[in-house]
């Protein structure tokens, strides 16, 4: 045998190929005397080592793309995404790019695991994209988006035992600043005569129209229409569900957004994020327009794929939450067992375009009756004559352009100037005759006091289901408020830039009488000086939460303190966390039938589920902690992070 023949046999043997007895023997005999062939064998093993320990490239998840094509082949049309940009457009790009994608692509999976079909990620991990990149990217993309149209497929599971699956399509049109239309067409074949969930919502500035079957217990439900005329700009009572275009509200709060990773959806690079359903409701506006829809649990997980370049939502799916509470809830609604890994509702973009919609798209159908919101349009030149004062109405506020001036029909006798750019808006309300007992505008007395750059203070509240982020400014001779979907920092900067100096709340607002009790808003320092026990803040709060305000409560028998802790960006979900402290040696009498005894770091406490309230006493101080959206475990985590509890819990 020559070297060449031996190497050939060696090569086959290394690869596990069976050699004949005769070949094996000859091979061994040759190897004993041939250093060159022994070197070949060693070299071959070294190559193998290198090959099998090479870093495997991250593998994309292509199931959807493949199944889309397969579905089309099998006669079941599936979505194909098309993103069309207007040709020859010279306007500034609405596609802000973030951190370089390629740099963060690969994870350290080894070829060794690849050979045995090792684990691969869905989606790709190793993402350097932070939640703030997503929220900031969306906020930046919202400004400057002037037109959009898209079609989506909606797939719903378990509407009822008879209707296990429904398929609908949704079309969306938008044109800045405030024209919007949403159509839902139900393609489901119902087993019995049923009114299909066909919906329409049209917003054209001051007019708002919604139509759909009324939700009713019977299979055939009458169709109802509602129209709002003289609508206030960006009215949240007659809303424009623009989160479908860019999830600016849903993903406003980086603390609540989990970035799951990157991948590709419908052939486009995309990033996947997760938020609980209760925070993602703006992505499901059709649920409230009409018709029948399956129920969702607040903690169900919504996984959203966002186009990495435009931040448009391409697909979002609802996955059932796990746990006994969800199971009990599902039982109440008669839902079947829903595995956590199977989506129960999905929205998938079929077609996205930046072309301006035809103007007729936003025509409001003729209807007999309508509701009047009473916003009377007025030209800028006539404002002073109509309102009796010259409002702060600069050409731009917060970088947005002035677009509508109206006189709201309310007792404040004020003006409302709306600013907009793309999907971003800011309402600036003003009055000279405010005599209410709280800040002007949709801002409460427990709002956070914020010192503005350049002097003065404003009172801030995070966005909620009913309102955008807002600040109220009480100045000499005038009261203003700003409401916007801009990020907190930009809203505060816009407020600071106004030519007014915000004053602290007058005593008339800070002081309230509730029954026999007197409640007074004050600083944390002032409160500490007013009570005979230490006031300690919880060290562990939900991400994004901070102290908004402090009130001293005097009920006649002693003085207590209430701390209001709020999310800085958005109120949705948890709501305001209240911590009340008061000198006491025993818990107050039980007030609910469904209370239970719990252990709060070694002290016996009480939990009241219907109020999400935890009460306990330590060092002769009664503490009550409550928040609408928190469960017992979360309340306990906060409770045990307060001052002494933390020390004992840690030890």
């Amino acid at each position, binding site marked *: 045998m020559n070297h060449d023949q031996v190497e050939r046999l060696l090569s086959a043997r290394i690869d596990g190929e069976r050699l004949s007895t005769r070949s094996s023997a000859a091979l061994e005999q040759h190897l004993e005397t041939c250093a060159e062939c022994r070197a070949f064998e060693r070299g071959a093993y070294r190559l193998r080592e290198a090959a099998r320990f090479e870093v495997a490239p991250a593998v*994309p998840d292509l199931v959807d793309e*493949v199944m889309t094509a397969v579905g089309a082949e*099998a006669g079941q049309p599936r979505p194909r995404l098309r993103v069309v940009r207007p040709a020859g457009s010279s306007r500034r790009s609405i596609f802000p790019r973030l951190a370089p994608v390629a*740099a963060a692509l690969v994870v*350290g999976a080894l070829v060794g695991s690849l050979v045995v079909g090792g684990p691969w990620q869905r989606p790709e991990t190793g993402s350097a994209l932070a939640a703030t990149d997503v929220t900031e990217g969306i906020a930046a993309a919202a400004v400057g988006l002037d037109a959009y149209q898209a079609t989506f497929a909606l797939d719903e599971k378990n509407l009822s035992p008879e209707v296990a699956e429904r398929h609908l399509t949704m079309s969306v049109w938008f044109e800045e600043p405030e024209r919007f239309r949403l159509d839902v067409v139900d393609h489901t074949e119902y087993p019995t005569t049923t009114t299909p969930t066909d919906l329409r919502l049209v917003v054209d500035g001051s007019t708002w129209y919604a139509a759909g079957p009324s939700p009713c217990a019977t299979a055939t439900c009458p169709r109802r229409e509602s129209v709002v005329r003289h609508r206030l700009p960006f009215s949240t009572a007659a809303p424009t569900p623009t989160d479908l275009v860019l999830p600016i509200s849903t993903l406003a709060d980086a603390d609540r957004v989990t970035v799951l990773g990157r991948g590709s959806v419908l052939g486009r690079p995309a990033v996947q994020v997760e938020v609980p359903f209760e925070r993602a409701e703006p992505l499901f506006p059709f649920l409230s327009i009409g018709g029948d829809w399956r129920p969702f649990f607040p903690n169900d997980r919504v996984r959203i794929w966002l186009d990495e370049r435009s931040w448009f939502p391409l697909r979002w799916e609802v996955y059932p939450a796990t746990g006994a509470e969800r199971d009990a809830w599902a039982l109440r609604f008669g839902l079947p067992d829903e595995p956590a890994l199977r989506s129960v509702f999905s929205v998938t973009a079929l077609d996205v375009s930046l072309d301006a919609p035809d103007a007729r798209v936003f025509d409001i159908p003729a209807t007999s009756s309508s509701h009047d919101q009473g916003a009377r349009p007025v030209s800028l030149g006539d404002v002073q004559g109509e309102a009796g004062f010259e409002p702060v109405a600069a050409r731009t506020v917060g970088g947005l352009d002035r677009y509508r001036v109206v006189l709201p029909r309310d007792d404040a006798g004020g003006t409302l100037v709306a600013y907009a750019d793309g999907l971003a808006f800011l309402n600036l309300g003003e009055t000279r005759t405010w005599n209410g007992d709280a800040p002007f505008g949709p801002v409460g007395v427990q709002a956070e006091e914020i010192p503005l750059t350049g002097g003065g203070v404003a009172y801030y509240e995070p966005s909620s289901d009913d309102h955008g982020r807002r600040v109220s400014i009480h100045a000499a001779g005038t009261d203003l408020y700003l409401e916007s979907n801009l990020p907190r920092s930009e809203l505060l900067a816009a407020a600071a830039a106004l030519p007014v100096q915000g004053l602290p709340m007058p005593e008339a607002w800070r002081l309230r009488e509730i029954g026999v009790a007197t409640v007074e808003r004050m600083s944390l320092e002032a409160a500490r000086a007013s009570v005979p026990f230490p006031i300690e803040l919880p060290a562990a709060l939900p991400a994004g939460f901070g102290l908004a305000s402090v009130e001293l409560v005097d009920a006649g028998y002693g003085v207590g303190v209430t701390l209001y802790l709020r999310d800085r960006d958005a109120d949705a979900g948890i709501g305001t966390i209240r911590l009340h402290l008061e000198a006491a040696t025993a818990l107050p009498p039980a007030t609910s039938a469904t209370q239970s005894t719990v252990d709060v770091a070694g002290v016996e406490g009480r939990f009241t589920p219907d109020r999400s309230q935890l009460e306990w006493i330590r060092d002769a101080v009664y503490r009550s902690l409550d928040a609408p959206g928190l469960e017992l475990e979360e309340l306990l985590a906060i409770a045990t992070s307060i001052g002494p509890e933390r020390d004992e819990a840690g030890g």
Partner: protein
Amino acid sequence: MNDPDPRTLTRARDGDVGAFEDLVRQYQGDVWRFAYHFTRDRALADDVTQEAFLRAFRFLRGFRGDSKFTSWLFRIARNCAMDQIKARNVYVERVTPIAGTTTDPQARVELHAALDAVSAEHREPFLLVEVFGLSYQEAADVLGVRVGTIKSRMHRARRAMMDALAVEEEAQ
């Protein structure tokens, strides 16, 4: 590489789209890696993978089980890769180093240098056998050649790569 559950395969052959989706899930990683090794281009690998599964769906009825399912699937993937390369008239001869970390950076550098040194004809069986763990018969099925051809190509690939490495070492 394991073949699929025969029941899944049978259902997929009978046109069950759900069963086929299971196959896609099970093998997309392997097919994509194979396509990537073949094309050295992520976007091309995506296209090849999609096209390969689409063709597999089309032709699954004709799969008679003469070879392993995975060999059959890889052969389709390889054909798709060839088509893509022809269509785009690009073939990245140089092995682009893949970003990332490894337990032995030296070994990686060497491998890339060595893979650079061999022709596609030899690189293919080497990748199939060494990286994807296919047997000679399976590799032969994928590449549409005889087992003996695989045997000699494996040998020549190893020889050429080792020679390349020796040259590298001498040059340093």
